[in-house]
């Protein structure tokens, strides 16, 4: 059995997750294998000096060329949202903003239309790849799930990470790769906790 949700680029070919088949416990094994395989391959590609600390990665992110005056608004909003969630200085408005991002992703299966992305890519000299936005949204979902334990956020995190893994070749910078690993790690931890709580 293959973990089909990451088997094709889900930016180009979204999965709608409707009436997905049931395979019993072995499905969870192949899910964990899929995540571990991604982590191993990314870590192998990364320089040993790369830190896996969310705070330092976010600082790097903000300082990078992507986030100077040429960066796109959505990336900046997502970064600001992550900062607020991480420092626990978020408001109801911030949660609503996260909800709006989730709604867009869940309904449209993308975070920006083609033109939007093309313009963003044209403006930036380095990485403004679409996949980076998904990584940032995944981190925001992860942070808010940690606080709320509302499965809506865990659910979205799982779908975003499917997409991120499926588009691995499009992750260009080591910062984005490390952030993706953090997102996958947190998702695996939440899934394991939930499984222990509900099934074991």
């Amino acid at each position, binding site marked *: 059995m293959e973990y089909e949700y990451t088997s094709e680029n889900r930016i180009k070919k979204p999965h709608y*997750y*409707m*009436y*997905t088949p049931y395979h019993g416990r072995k*499905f969870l094994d192949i899910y964990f294998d899929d995540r571990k395989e991604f982590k191993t391959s990314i870590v192998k590609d990364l320089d040993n000096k790369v830190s896996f600390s969310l705070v330092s990665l976010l600082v790097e992110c903000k300082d990078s060329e992507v986030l100077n005056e040429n960066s796109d608004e959505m990336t900046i909003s997502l970064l600001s949202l992550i900062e607020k969630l991480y420092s626990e200085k978020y408001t109801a408005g911030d949660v609503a903003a996260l909800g709006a991002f989730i709604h867009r992703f869940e309904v449209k299966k993308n975070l920006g239309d083609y033109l939007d992305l093309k313009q963003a890519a044209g403006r930036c000299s380095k990485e403004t790849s679409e996949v980076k936005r998904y990584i940032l949204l995944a981190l925001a979902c992860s942070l808010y799930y940690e606080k709320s334990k*509302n499965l809506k956020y865990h659910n979205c995190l799982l779908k975003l990470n*499917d997409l991120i893994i499926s588009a691995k070749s499009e992750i260009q910078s080591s910062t984005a790769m490390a952030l993706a690993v953090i997102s996958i790690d947190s998702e695996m931890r939440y*899934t394991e906790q939930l*499984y222990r709580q509900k*099934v074991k």
Partner: protein
Amino acid sequence: MKMTLDDIGMLAVPNNRSKYYIEKLLEKSLLPAYVLVLDNPSNQLTPGQRPQDLENDFSDLLQTNCISYEVIRTLDVNSEEVVEAIKKRREKIFIYSGPGGAILRKNILQTGKKFLHVHPGRLPDYRGSTTIYYHILQEGSCGVSALFLSEKIDQGPVITTRNVPLPSDTDLDYDFDPRIRAELLCDVIKLYSKRGRIDTVMQGGKSGETYYIIHPVLRHIAKLSLEK
């Protein structure tokens, strides 16, 4: 004795849920006066349909029980054809068992008819998609609510809501879900047949949570938790 309810119609796609609704209503001898069947023009499976649903057994069920029906070859509940068909009917309330994920738009909601939907989740806490699974995982229970549809997903006036015992060893999508919906639907229709009215309570707009289609990992954990 079978009682045909002159005010009650049904808008249905031929799937398992629609069959459960009709069978359960038949069990209670409460029949809709008319059913508008939306059939897939491409003969391909739509979300929630199984290969056996493409056979004509839903129409057969209606025919066998002398329920008047009409078939429109579309899955667009908001299409002009559907709106016109609904508009000219005399039934005031339509039991809704339309295609998964469809949202009724102004044109059909302004026909003067009410669309009675049964949602597998306690409202307003569990709006949206696949809420049975979220209910099981977050509360260890299930809920079901009857409401009249509005333009906003699961935010229309609520008729009633109830908790349902957790199932064991059952197909949640194709057995448990349509069964709990059909049972509540029957109770609502039965009450209507006695009182001649359906009372509702408005939902607070800002309270509640909307969920999106569940990821297979969470779906597996929910199902495995029931097998425990």
